């Protein structure tokens, strides 16, 4: 689904810092959305914490960096980090190449999948949010 020029798949949930979450049953997969990867430019570093790390919704648990930008990664839900995409260690540019596929970042075992409802999901929510962030961050 394209919204305001950005690829924002409709089956995903989005948190306000432009990370997406995909429901894959027992685990949630997380990555960076198209808006953020375009804005950040070439990603050169992604912190990959050890599996088992306990995540608290809204708290920072990792950092990432492009040549010009330092990003903080916040937990979208409460849960446990159960996997990281080790490919990103030597090829963080996968996020730019395929942010919803090979560029996935983390897998989280949620405490309560109901917390997905706190994230943005509907077309209307995404459209309003993107319009605001385009205004705020995208330079003509």
């Amino acid at each position: 689904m394209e919204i305001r020029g950005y690829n924002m798949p409709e089956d995903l949930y989005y948190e306000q810092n432009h990370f997406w979450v995909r429901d894959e049953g027992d685990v949630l997969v997380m990555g960076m959305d198209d808006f953020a990867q375009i804005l950040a430019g070439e990603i050169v570093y992604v912190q990959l914490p050890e599996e088992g790390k306990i995540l608290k919704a809204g708290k920072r648990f990792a950092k990432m960096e492009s040549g010009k930008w330092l990003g903080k990664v916040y937990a979208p839900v409460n849960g446990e980090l159960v996997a990281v995409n080790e490919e990103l260690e030597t090829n963080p540019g996968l996020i730019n190449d395929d942010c919803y596929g090979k560029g996935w970042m983390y897998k989280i075992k949620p405490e309560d999948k109901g917390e997905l409802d706190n994230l943005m999901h509907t077309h209307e929510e995404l459209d309003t949010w993107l319009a605001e962030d385009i205004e705020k961050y995208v330079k003509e």
Partner: protein
Amino acid sequence: MEAKYNFADRFGDQVLRCSKCGLCQAVCPVFGAMLRPSYSARGKMLILKEVMDGTIELSDELIETLFQCTICKSCFENCPSGVDVPEIIRQTRRDMVQIGSCHPAFEGMNEVLKNHTNIYAEDEPEDFERERNKKAKYVYFIGCVGSYREDEATMSTLDLLDRLKVDYTLIDEVCCSGVLEDLGYQINERLARKNIDLILATGAKAVITGCPYCSRTFNSKPQYAELNDKGIKIIHVTQFLKGMDFGVKTDKLVTYHDPCDLGRHCGIYEEPREIVRKIAPRFVELRHNRVDALCCGAGGGVRGAYPKNSIAMARRRLQEVEEVGADVVLTECNSCVHNLSNAKLRKQKFRIYNISQFINELMEGTE
């Protein structure tokens, strides 16, 4: 006759003195990671000789080669002909900026510092939960990387200063802008003035810097000479901590990475080792150490302009940490900590710290 470019006027004799022996190539971190002869100091001197001969011109096509140098000074230290490649590169970059050929990242950094207080154009500085601009015996000057990229390391260093009951203050510091001289530009006078005024207002007798590059800039650049004229000493945090007793030790195997800005550029090799040996009886040197230390790849604007190559250089350095089997690698430069930490692979289980951060964690009981 006046040469076409200033580098030829100022350093032409040195460019011609290069005997093409290649000793610099063997120690060049850029060559070591990229394996392209034109990236080494010898390659750069060959190109500049051609520019002097008039067979090629300085132009955008040479940006990739001439702007890819970390100014680590290894080449100079190993050159039997005494060719001061870092200074030649700085001058050549100035010449290139003058003709409008500059790496966009370098140009961007110069522009950023015209309108912002730091190289990252960050608008919200970390407050480090401390009062700023108060009267104190010392000013602690953090630097851009410590303020905006390695804030946890900086917080730890500040906690250590508190534990040691040091009478210090932070100031509303702005970038020292020394790095601009590596990129082909000049120190930003407005930023220098602001730092000097803020430092003088505290009544401090000395400035302790966390960043060795800031230390070097304050100590050696005419724009900051007023500090020296007014009797204010500039000391790197390792010089400040040397001789102190911390009352803690680690039984871990510890090694030390010499930052280029502290080591080859300032000649500070023993102070950090004295501190490290005191807290880590099991100390081991890296294969390349002191004047031969391998650059982490972050300097000279390379981290900003060529981040992937910069990280590749840091990975070479971390291989040396693996070789000695250290549990902990210490350094005292936030740029080095940042680049080495970004480069560390998950399978590499050692930890990377600034010395001051590590001591604080030992005292805190968290390491």
